[in-house]
């Protein structure tokens, strides 16, 4: 039996204070009230937070928008300026981090990212350092919403994948359930009251959330069907006709993990840094070679790559979809493109 604890709604700030004793705590915070966007920010004593689903995914905990891969410093020998010395420093900058109240789709995102970053031919040391120091406290969703579809792609409103602790809102507070030794240890040290008596309430709430979901279509055939669409130019033109190539879908995605590497500063007078930044496969520059040759010149070809990666090629390499159904690409698309519709059309209609 896992460790179960209960926290009163009033006791949450104290619990967050406990979490932040030895770690950076990233919690959902409402940005300027009129806009209603919720982002993950470092929580400090007294800072207001919310339990709403964040507008953005929680992937920055392991994959910051911008990070330094290494610094370089070059020095010219004053006696002989043609002699240059070079110093490189690649010390990782990871700190212990707790993600508080992300949703199951966000937590599953870490599992999706783990595969290419940790289980491929080469391990990414920067990701690994962050991931090893990450504790994930996930809040189960009280209900489905019109844009999300986690249960189509292997998840659900109380999916445990990727979480160390699963939290469920019940009358008067939150029930916390440890799922991993790390989660158990964290709960045991928390001083929170035992929650076993409230666990049936949590289970009922989780069950009720499942009951709000629409019926999931069968996507077993999706990888083969989406792959078979590759050469159907008309299909992609039609499906992605109004795409602006803005890339919002990639930035809001908990599983989009492509990045760019660029240098900043020459390392002489200006400090030199090699940076890794989020990149965006919707940009025509993403694949454009220096010669001018570009395998994905058209917007339709780029969206084809994005959808195929989520539903065909990532599954081919790793055996799972790299879409967790969070729906953020749908709710944030300026022209209302819906990845569900594209996949369903690929699966349903004959090529």
């Amino acid at each position: 039996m896992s460790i179960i604890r209960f926290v009163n709604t009033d006791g949450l700030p104290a619990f967050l204070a406990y979490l932040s004793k030895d770690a950076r705590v990233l919690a959902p915070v409402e940005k300027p009230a009129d806009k209603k966007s919720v982002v993950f920010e470092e929580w400090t004593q007294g800072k207001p937070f919310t339990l709403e689903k964040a507008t953005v995914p929680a992937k920055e905990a392991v994959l910051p928008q911008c990070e330094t891969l290494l610094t370089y410093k070059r020095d010219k020998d004053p006696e002989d300026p043609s002699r240059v010395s070079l110093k490189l420093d690649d010390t990782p900058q990871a700190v212990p981090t707790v993600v508080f109240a992300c949703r199951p789709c966000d937590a599953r995102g870490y599992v999706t990212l783990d595969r290419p970053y940790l289980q491929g031919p080469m391990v990414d040391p920067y990701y690994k350092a962050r991931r090893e120091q990450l504790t994930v406290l996930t809040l189960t969703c009280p209900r489905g919403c019109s844009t999300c579809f986690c249960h189509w792609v292997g998840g659900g409103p109380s999916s445990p994948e990727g979480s160390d602790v699963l939290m469920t809102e019940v009358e008067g507070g939150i029930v916390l359930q440890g799922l991993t030794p790390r989660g158990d240890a964290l709960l045991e040290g928390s001083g929170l009251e035992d929650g076993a008596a409230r666990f049936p309430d949590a289970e009922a709430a989780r069950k009720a959330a499942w009951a709000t979901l629409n019926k999931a279509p069968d996507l077993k055939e999706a990888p083969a069907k989406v792959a078979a669409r590759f050469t159907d130019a008309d299909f992609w033109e039609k499906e992605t006709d109004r795409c602006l190539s803005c890339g919002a879908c990639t930035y809001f995605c908990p599983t989009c993990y492509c990045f760019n590497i660029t240098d900043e500063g020459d390392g002489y007078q200006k400090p030199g840094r090699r940076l890794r930044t989020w990149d965006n496969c919707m940009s025509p520059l993403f694949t454009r070679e220096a010669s001018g040759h570009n395998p994905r010149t058209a917007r339709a070809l780029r969206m084809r790559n994005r959808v195929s990666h989520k539903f065909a090629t990532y599954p081919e390499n790793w055996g799972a979809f790299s879409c967790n159904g969070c729906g953020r690409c749908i709710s944030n698309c300026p022209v209302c493109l819906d990845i569900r519709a594209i996949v369903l059309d690929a699966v349903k209609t004959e090529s």
Partner: protein
Amino acid sequence: MVLHSQNASATGGMLREISPRPLPGGNPYQPMPATVLEVIQETGNIKTLRVVLDDAEAMKNFRYEPGQVGQLSVFGAGESTFVINSPPSCKDYLQFSVMQAGEVTAAIHRLNPGDKVGVRAPLGNYFPYEQWKGKNVFFVGGGIGMAPIRTIMLHLLENKKDYGKISLLYGARSPRDMAYSYELQGWLDNPDLDCTLCIDNPFEGWQHKVGLIPNVLTELQPSPDNTVAVLCGPPIMIKFTLQALEKLGFAPENIVTTLEKRMKCGIGICGRCNIGSHYVCVDGPVFTLAQLQELPPEL
């Protein structure tokens, strides 16, 4: 960077296998500091750099296979991928030939002997030369595409006894666009190599073939019997040379090419060099035509 966990147990949770190859050890993003030893102006827009790793021990132990690539850094400008075009037997330096095209290559062209660069290598797979033993090998190199051909050709010539007839067709727009001009006479005189040179248009004093590579190839009529064709060049040349080779009767399994894509990480993560589920930086850059025909047409 720690060097060479040979064949580091690849693939982990991946559903397909990555063929064993020498890999860089340690942090794969950390370049090895290196110093430019020599810069050779090959043509108007191609320079060859010979670089030496600053860590003498690393240089001595550096191992790679012909066809593997490296990320060459100019700090402050960035890094780009080039094939290591010296043969693996060369222990004195690593050689890269670079055509000026964008920001990083422009910065590389500004380098002088003594300048510091970074090298992340070896990356990618290599030419499956073990499988070619006992066979004839016909190389076709177009323009800067001669760079990867050079490394594997020199490697085969060093081990000539294991192979049948070795031929080279090397073409460029004009004699002035021909890299390795100082080596060509040696290749023409080499009794182990049947070397043909061609240029696109007639040029005063040119004593070799004139014509586009696919046409000259068709004229040479290499027999596909027990022969592997290995080609590299610009996309347009590849397209028509593949057609010519297929017309000559070469089976897709016996046509080998090495691809280029925009790359950043070089280790199969950053997501831009994929063709379908395969990444040119990890599954390539060397592919047979048979392998490419299995992948989506997105070159």
